[in-house]
């Protein structure tokens, strides 16, 4: 894979921390390259380090060793302010618990990342509406999260993740709180999105992993060869 085709490059990435006097090796020496488009699933048992790895790729956490390079930038040495700018422009997050802001409407939630990115108001409203319509929430603009179903909230969260048109979407157990029908819809949506950008998904769901172009199996903080 050439450098141009690579969006994420992990070199000997490790995350160790102390818990109760013991060193926990949440992630321990991962090397991997992930291309600029397609869907990658990270699978493994609970506590294997899947989410920790995802958080380091998304600049939400720092490795204790190794190098995380995303979209040409090495994240390890960046200051907090630069990490914030990086997340704003490069990453869209989808959380298991949706994490929509409760007192904002669907439209306002989707507009929010663009507001942080100084997109003019008219433009961000237009784009937020267009994204919500594309994700089947055209009649839910004014609804607050507590007025939406689980599937609708997650689609709203995906629309928010796409707001600044980032090259990378990171999804942590995106179907963990959904029924199978809503989950299926989210799988298909993430697969469709991955045609034009990289989608990295942490999941326990076999069906979602089967849709991925690449599956990374992780156990005890290390990638397993399959």
């Amino acid at each position, binding site marked *: 894979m050439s450098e141009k085709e690579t969006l994420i490059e992990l070199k000997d990435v490790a995350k160790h921390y102390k818990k109760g006097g013991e060193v926990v090796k949440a992630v321990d020496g991962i090397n991997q390259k992930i291309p600029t488009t397609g869907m990658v699933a990270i699978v493994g048992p609970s506590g294997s380090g899947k989410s920790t790895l995802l*958080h380091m790729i*998304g600049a*939400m*956490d720092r490795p204790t060793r190794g190098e995380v390079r995303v979209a040409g930038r090495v994240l390890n040495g960046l200051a*907090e*302010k630069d990490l*914030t*700018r990086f*997340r*704003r*422009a490069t990453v*869209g*997050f989808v*959380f298991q618990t949706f*994490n929509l*802001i*409760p007192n904002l409407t669907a439209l306002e939630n989707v507009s*929010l*990342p663009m507001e*942080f*990115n100084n997109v003019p108001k008219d433009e961000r409203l237009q784009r937020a509406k267009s994204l919500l319509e594309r994700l089947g929430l055209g009649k839910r603009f004014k609804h607050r999260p507590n007025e939406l179903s689980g599937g609708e909230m997650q689609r709203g969260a995906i629309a*928010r*993740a796409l707001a*600044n048109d980032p090259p990378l979407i990171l999804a942590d157990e995106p179907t963990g709180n959904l029924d199978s029908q809503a989950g299926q819809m989210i799988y298909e949506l993430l697969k469709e999105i991955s045609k034009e950008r990289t989608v990295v998904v942490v999941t326990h769901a076999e069906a979602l992993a089967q849709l991925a172009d690449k599956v990374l199996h992780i156990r005890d903080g290390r990638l397993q060869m399959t």
Partner: protein
Amino acid sequence: MDNVASVTKKLQEVVGDVADIQAPKGAAVFTATTSRTVTRLAVAGATLAAFLMTIVIFFVTLMQVRERAREIGTLKAIGASDGGVTVEVLTEAIALTILGGLVALIFFKILGETITGPVFTFGITPFLPSHYQPLVQSLSVSNEISASGLGGLVLIAFVASVVGSAYGLWQVVRLSPLEAMKHE
């Protein structure tokens, strides 16, 4: 007026314990002393109320920010700067405090006289001889509040809400987005 004391004594002998006999000077001293005592009590009560208000606003705004740690973590994860989050949360806290103050002022204007009158009467009558009770009950207590008093209260509430929110924010904003989302 040289024989006030002897006249008072003779009148007292005639009327017995039914009434106090007071010369104008004594009555004036009594009124002034009572007035001063009531004023001191009112100032002490107001100071205590302002102190309690400060404590309540401080802790309410502090808890509000802590309860929003997950939301703040999410905002940071999707690209909000620490400054942006701080301005947003502080503005909300101040707006809520001002709104709460306005609602309290409206209630005070509507119910103040009805409430403060009986509170004043019941608060002072146990300490006075029984024949003064009709006099105390006939007094009316004003629910007027001076501009400087109101301004002072608003300032105290403003400072308490800013300090409470800022302390809560300082605890949450310095965390990474991930830590903030897990913060209890």
